[in-house]
């Protein structure tokens, strides 16, 4: 087993274990910390795929900014086991099961559709130069559309925060 494979298995274990702990953990703050670990593991996978730019952006944006805001909200609301409602609705359980099963189905279908295997350390789509070129040539339209989406989200956030005044 090469070092790369070893790293792959380690990162996969970390990612899946962390993701499971996000769900299992009773304390929401712990859940978020496990989610951060998961993000790190995924960034590790990106690096294995030679996509360093994606890896670091994943860390900066998700682990560095969004998770901090999550943590922020959870800490301020001080959620813990006492604030949980004692009996959850039965429908929630059914809904969750169905949604999970559907997601599973989609995942299985996606994996079956995927074209063969992906080589480690090859490909350069995740490097900043190629990624930039691709985004601004082949995918210019979706890129601009998503920027419009972000802009509308920003305006929405401003409008919501201004509602009281």
């Amino acid at each position, binding site marked *: 087993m090469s070092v790369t494979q070893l790293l792959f298995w380690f990162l996969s274990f970390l990612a899946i274990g962390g993701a499971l702990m996000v769900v299992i953990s009773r304390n929401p703050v712990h859940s978020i910390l496990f989610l951060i670990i998961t993000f790190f593991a995924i960034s590790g996978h990106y690096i294995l795929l030679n996509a360093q*730019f994606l890896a*670091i952006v994943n*860390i*900066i944006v998700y682990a560095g900014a969004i998770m*901090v805001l999550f943590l922020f909200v959870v800490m301020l609301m001080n959620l813990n086991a006492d604030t949980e409602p004692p009996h959850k609705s039965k429908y929630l359980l059914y809904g969750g099961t169905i949604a999970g099963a559907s997601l599973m189905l989609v995942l299985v279908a996606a994996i079956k559709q995927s074209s063969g295997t992906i080589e480690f*350390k090859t490909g350069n789509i995740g490097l900043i130069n190629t990624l930039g070129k691709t985004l601004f040539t082949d995918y210019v339209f979706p890129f601009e559309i998503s920027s419009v989406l972000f802009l509308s989200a920003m305006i929405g956030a401003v409008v919501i925060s201004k509602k009281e005044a």
Partner: protein
Amino acid sequence: MLLTVDLALIIEKLALIVVVVMSSLVVAMYTTFAERKVAAVLQDRSGPNRAGPFGLLQPLADGLKLFFKEEIIPNFSSKFLFILGPSLAMLTAMMTGAVIPWGDKVHFFGRDISLQIADINIGILYVFGVVSMGVYGIMIGSWASNNKYSLMGGLRAASQIISYELAMGIALIALLMVTGTLSLKTMVNQQLDSYWNVVKQPLGFFIFLICVFAECNRTPFDLPEAENELIGGYHTEYSSMKLGFYLFAEYINMFISSAVMASLFFGGYDIPLVNDAALLEKVGTNWMAAIHAGMLFVKIAFFLFLFMWVRWTLPRFRYDQLMRLGWKILIPLALFNMLLTGALILVKQNGWSF
């Protein structure tokens, strides 16, 4: 190549890591001392001068004192997270040093050893990633303290760091447009024979400098530990060396961010007004590396002095002033700087004519 095992390379990098970590620890130690000395000099006092000649052993005495203090872990706090907080703060502070080019290269045992631990092609983004991790040390520690003042300090730190990271990033984008690379080594090499980037990006440097002050929680942005409002801020509940770690991490952050600023805007290890290639011919590789590293340290020392100088001059911001400065002044200014840089680059590429 990535992940190829080369024993000599590993030993070489390991040695470099040890040297960088040790030197940043020593520098941080003596920065605490320098801070007190500079404060004293600026206020017409003597400062610490009892421990050893000129008080040079003062940082050792301080460290020893912290080690011998009682470790207190609050009853209702999560013990693991309580210890994780300062450890994370220290870890992220140390990790940034990996991508900074401390010098060009040295020649030992028939090998050219680069004085940069990792020349990754996303260099400066790595610094950003690690810095954005730094806030977790503070947040986790503050939450695990189970103390509302600590939590307030942590929340302030988080919102402050996130807010100023934006302006910092946008200011940096303008610089990246000029340099066309993310690697710190390439950036420094570009500046070796031409103007420093601060000439090309004065506004960008200025915004970056202010944001670095905010990221390091230094006065006038030291609201997370505003002692008149929040007791001790996020480290209220900490004692002994865990408190020491928090304090130390701040100084290591200062050291590393000074190094980053020097590399990005002030030519890194470039010697001003000297033709480096000609000097290299004269003194040889190893001496050149020593001179280069010394030059970088001179620049770092200047920035560290600037940190202290500002700290003992300006009073602390109020929280709404801090947020207003970050969101309403620095970000628009950085955006303007980015647009201006882009326009100038376009003009230049088209030969000053459309």
